[in-house]
């Protein structure tokens, strides 16, 4: 039971990360099409006060995995080594970009840090997709350590997952800008969101059809009886959210698109959970195999139960303090 609670908490931390840092990274990815300095300033400023808290969920995901599922932590990180290192290095560039682009003395220096911010965001998102795909397609483990080769994780499926995450985060970023910006930037964000949503839905379909083929257990879960009772609402809900998304977009809603984009992520995540449960490292390691002893889990659970609601509370407060539309050039007067 304890282990199930912890699996849920870690899953929650990773989901929180994907939803929160997703739009931060998406804003960075959209630097590719937003080239004016003033627009870029607005984009960065819209996430500057909150990005650090958002990224902390990734540390909780990693740290929590280390604490509660140390075997999974060790195996996943050694198996997906290059993708993880790539993600970390990319996040270094992305993270310092927030401060450095304002501190650069020259226009070219600033452009350089803008590029680093954009590339860092894009590569980090891509690597997260690689990790997701690499995990889904299974990891070879012998005697509690990774037993596969150096590039085992690199397949068509993982690359597809990487692209899907980049598109998905960019969509979140565009929807975030629709919510937090106004004027021409907001209008352009609507256009990006429309195109990206089409791409994302297409990729959801492809990845969803591909995943059950990776592992017989997955397809049994999805198409067998009685699993199908649990799985069939997922695609229906995805379609429902799609309708709401286009409705919101065409009626010029500010917040609906972001809500829908995040709902898609939640649904995909739920689908992922359905496929994997109760595995933590497919094809063999379950959450119980990987779990730390009960005393470790209990000790940290006490803190988590008290602290996570607190964290959600003050994170909400921080978002509330910085609510409202972000405008350009406010200090140029």
């Amino acid at each position, binding site marked *: 039971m304890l282990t199930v609670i912890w699996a849920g908490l870690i899953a929650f931390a990773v989901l929180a990360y994907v939803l929160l840092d997703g739009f931060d990274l998406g804003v960075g990815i959209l630097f590719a099409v937003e080239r004016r300095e003033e627009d870029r300033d607005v984009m960065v400023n819209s996430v500057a006060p909150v990005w650090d808290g958002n990224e902390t969920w990734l540390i909780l995901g990693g740290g929590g995995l280390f604490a509660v599922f140390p075997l999974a932590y060790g195996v*996943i990180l050694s198996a997906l080594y290059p993708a993880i290192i790539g993600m970390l290095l990319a996040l270094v560039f992305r993270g310092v970009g927030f401060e450095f682009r304002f501190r650069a003395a020259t226009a070219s220096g600033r452009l350089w840090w803008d590029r680093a911010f954009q590339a860092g965001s894009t590569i980090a998102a891509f690597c997260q997709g690689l990790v997701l795909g690499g995990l889904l397609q299974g990891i070879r483990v012998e005697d509690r350590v990774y037993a596969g080769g150096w590039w085992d994780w690199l397949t068509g499926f993982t690359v597809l997952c990487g692209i899907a995450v980049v598109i998905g985060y960019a969509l979140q970023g565009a929807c975030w800008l629709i919510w937090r910006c106004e004027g021409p930037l907001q209008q352009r964000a609507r256009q990006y969101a429309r195109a990206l949503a089409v791409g994302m839905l297409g990729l959801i379909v492809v990845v969803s059809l591909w995943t059950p083929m990776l592992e017989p257990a997955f397809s049994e879960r999805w198409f067998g009886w009685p699993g199908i009772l649990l799985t069939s609402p997922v695609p229906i809900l995805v379609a429902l959210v799609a309708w709401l998304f286009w409705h919101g977009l065409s009626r010029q809603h500010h917040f609906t698109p972001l809500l829908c984009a995040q709902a898609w992520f939640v649904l995909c995540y739920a689908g992922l959970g359905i496929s994997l449960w109760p595995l933590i490292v497919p094809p063999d390691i379950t959450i119980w195999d990987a779990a*730390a002893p009960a005393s470790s889990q209990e000790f940290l659970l006490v803190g988590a139960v008290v602290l996570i609601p607190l964290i959600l509370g003050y994170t909400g407060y921080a978002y509330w303090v910085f609510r409202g539309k972000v405008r350009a050039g406010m200090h140029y007067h």
Partner: protein
Amino acid sequence: MPDADAVLLARVQFAFTIGFHIVLPALTIGLASYLAVLEALWLATGRQVYNDVFQYWLRVFAVGFGMGVVSGLVMSYQFGTNWARFADKAGPIIGPLLGYEVLMAFFLEAGFLGVMLFGRRRVGRGVHFAATMLVAIGTLISAFWILAANSWMQTPQGYTLTPDGRFLPADWWQVIFNPSFPYRLVHMVIACYLSVAFVVGAVGAWHLGRDAQNQAARLMFSMAMWMAVVVAPIQLLVGDQHGLNTLEYQPAKIAAVEGAWETQPGTPLILFGMPNMQQERTDWAVEIPHLGALILTHSWDGSIKGLKEFPPQDRPFSPVTFWAFRIMVGLGLLMAAIGVWAAWLRVRGGLYASPWLRRAVLAMAPSGFIALLAGWTVTEVGRQPFTVYGMLRTTESVSPVGLPGVGASLAGFVVVYAIVFGAGFVFLLRLMGRPPTVGESGPETGVPVRSAGITPVAALQDTH
């Protein structure tokens, strides 16, 4: 058994990434407390200069914190990428400690950092001060947990061992408050404060040299010199106690620090020399008889165990610990001396007038950080050849990642860190090279728009 080169490279990678990282939390731990003190003084007295100095250092804090976050993120995954066996075996103990660090400290810092940096015009003074305090407290909580984890690796207790060699927690109180933890925590937090004090002092000294009447620069210089005279001597005492604790629990580390091979009554203090691991002696040793015994056992004829008492495969690499220790202690003594010198000048009424003191403080700007890195080198290299002292060997801790993988990622880290932290260092120097002025504004202005003034109300105020 993984090959020796891969182990060495994994160690170099960990040392490299943590060496870069550790300087930044040290900066933010020290600065966060300093900023909290400045804001409290400003709120209490209403004097403009406190706010000016606060805003001045807040910009430095923002850049340092950003770099600390990203380099720390790398650290939280290093255990898994390069040290997967360690993660599996010691994870049940180390993992929850780091988990608490994330839950109690990182979120707290991250949650209120935005308000602290950009929220002056969006929240009241009281709330802003609360945010600053919470960030400062967060940095200290973070130090608490990470040092508990590190200290447990040095002096493990409160665990049981499974047949397959995994550590299971038995008593969390014993795990956290392991024998070396209180000493290490106090020693490290003071080290952070001293490191920042000397940076602040050096910046004050630099700007005093250009404009002796700059009130903000005078305040920085004066506060830093108070820290030096009060805290540096305390640090020497704490360090002495920490050393005695190490002698009790990690005698091989002390032997390596001292370069002592033989166990002999009235152990001499070797001032300088070069420990020779092959020949089992310390070459060119300059010794003071009985002083080692006096310092480490507080008795004239006391003795410490020499390195020869330990099997060769259990000995730390003495040349590194020996010299790192001397760098640390030497700089600590210099810092205390600067503090006394400054106090003497202050009593005579000439604290700001002495160009030689200013030059000395300027030269000592990085001394705290160098001493801190040297101290970490002493304690970490001195723990070798174990990751969990006496229990788990470093060679049994590494991931099954081959030499090319560790080497390539190490190269990646070196290149990226050189670019990113090189640039960050330049930005920090540039921020600190700018003289503090009356009416300093923090990170909110000077850049086009930070998040300040997002709301229409604030925007209206800004357009005036």
